[in-house]
């Protein structure tokens, strides 16, 4: 599996003409874990979702090349995309409170994902759902399978979401700020679980976050986005060698126990970064 993005731009029509949200982004992804960091509105979610062609209706996407394992996503129609979505690449959204269907039980939603791509009976699907819930380390999978999303905690909901996206055994998992809506204590658990499952299944991962150290901890490579551009790409271990002032600024804002600073610096943004 190989994802290639060349010169991707995504724009939205506004009253004053087209507004560019993603500006000529190029990325390649093999069987590895790629982190995309950046602040809100930097275009990281749009970039990742463009691989599945799940952009808002009004978005206009152009690129020199956008392929998923050789399949041209740019020219693919809905039917062709459905062969990728779920089956070969899953998407985990931020808040399970909104991203799970409130009127279907957790089990139904997982079984649906399983059945859509694996052609099995209803009972098989239900058993698979319970098995998947156990794989995401839920103690009482049968009970959780019968529960509706509003009866689950945020962490539980995100486990259900992970189980659902892993059901068809995809090659790539896109996690769009999977822990931002969770308590700090649960965040680490969910990330560790995801990383464990991804590694064990030999899947590729795109982890979107605004937490630079966290991403570098879980990923092989980190792309830093700012105002719709990838400003810097680094190996996870090379954060200290970051060159771009934005990345450096982000790192310097971080308090650390080992190097306490009396006062944290405030990032000064250079308009030149936008050019």
């Amino acid at each position: 599996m190989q994802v290639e993005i060349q010169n991707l731009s995504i724009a939205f029509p506004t009253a004053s003409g087209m507004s560019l949200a993603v500006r000529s982004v190029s990325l390649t992804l093999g069987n590895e874990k790629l982190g995309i960091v950046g602040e809100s509105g930097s275009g990281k979610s749009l970039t990742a979702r463009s691989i599945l062609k799940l952009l808002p209706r009004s978005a206009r996407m152009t690129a020199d090349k956008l392929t998923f394992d050789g399949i041209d996503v740019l020219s693919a129609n809905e039917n062709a995309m459905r062969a990728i979505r779920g089956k070969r690449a899953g998407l985990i959204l931020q808040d399970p409170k909104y991203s799970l269907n409130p009127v279907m039980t957790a089990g139904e939603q997982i079984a649906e994902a399983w059945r859509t791509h694996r052609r099995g009976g209803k009972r098989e699907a239900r058993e698979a759902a319970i098995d998947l819930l156990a794989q995401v380390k839920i103690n009482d999978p049968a009970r959780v399978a019968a529960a509706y999303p509003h009866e689950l905690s945020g962490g539980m909901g995100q486990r259900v979401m992970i189980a659902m996206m892993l059901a068809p055994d995809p090659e790539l998992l896109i996690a769009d700020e999977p822990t931002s809506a969770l308590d700090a204590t649960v965040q680490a658990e969910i990330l560790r679980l995801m990383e464990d499952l991804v590694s064990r299944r030999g899947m590729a991962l795109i982890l979107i976050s605004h937490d630079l150290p966290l991403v570098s901890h879980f990923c092989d490579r980190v792309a830093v986005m700012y105002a719709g551009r990838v400003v810097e790409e680094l190996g996870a271990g090379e954060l200290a060698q970051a060159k771009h002032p934005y990345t450096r600024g982000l790192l310097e804002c971080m308090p650390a126990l080992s190097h306490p600073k009396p006062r944290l610096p405030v990032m000064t943004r250079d308009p030149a970064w936008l050019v």
Partner: protein
Amino acid sequence: MATSRLKALAATTASVPITLFGLVLVTFLIGRVMPIDPVLAIVGDRAPADVVAAARLELGLDRPLYVQFWIYLTKLAVGDLGRSVMTSHTVGEDIRRFFPATMELATVAIFLAAGIGIPLGVLAAVKQGTRIDHTIRVVCLAGHSLPIFVLSLLSLLVFYATLGWAPGPGRQNLMFDDMVPVVTNFLTVDALLAGEWEVFRDAVAHLLQPAGVLAYFAMAFIARMTRAFMLDALAGEYVITARAKGLSPMRVIWRHAFGNISVRLVTIIALTYAGLLEGAVVTETVFSWPGLGQYLTISLLNADMNAVLGATLVVGVTYLGFNLLADVLYRLLDPRVS
């Protein structure tokens, strides 16, 4: 969870008798303060004074208002709504005769309205902003803004007078009058029970036009609500999740988005149906449909107060009943409401 749901249901049901009592009280008072003399309506304006006095006494109108209300309540408790001056039947009998005609009309109308309105609303939402959406909106706007008597008259003019596709006003061809024994007072059902196919066909033909007019009106509302609900649902994150799972567009739309609004639609449809049951007055008048609306109008014009009170109560109870039904369905169908 099940017990808390039952408790909430019991609480809802408990409020019904109170509302019912209020309904009876208000209806009764309005009937009494209206500047119509029911005695005059019975004995006529040329009756001698002693006859008028005797009739007044017989009706109990000389007693204080609260005593009159108490008497009305005690009679109501055993199902006695009094006697209609106009038809000289008991009001209960009259309602049993007229209400089924209205129900027949409203039931056919609501099935048509929901059957067409829901798919149209979903389609408009899915195709938001396209020509299809605009067309549906114009069609619905017309159904909503044209007064129903205009619609009824236009329909008669086009389909009956000009094209001759539909039979004229009334519930059936006079030729078939009294041909089938009365069982349910639903003419279509009675005709089927009697095995009279021609009567059945005639009854359906007569039913379709007024039901169609009512359905158009109700359909406009249902389609508009469906569209609004669907737009809301389609913007939900769980729709992105459903698409990311690789589901077919049909499944995303109907199972995921529509599945989330169906409960709210049930409420809308139940209340629209109740509205049709009570609000077909104008349509019934234009189409000479012998239903409760017509009964109520004629009774009111004749100062037949027992009939007016009785019919109003039936309408009120129906509305309450459907409100309760909608509430119960909402609680049963939506897992989030406990």
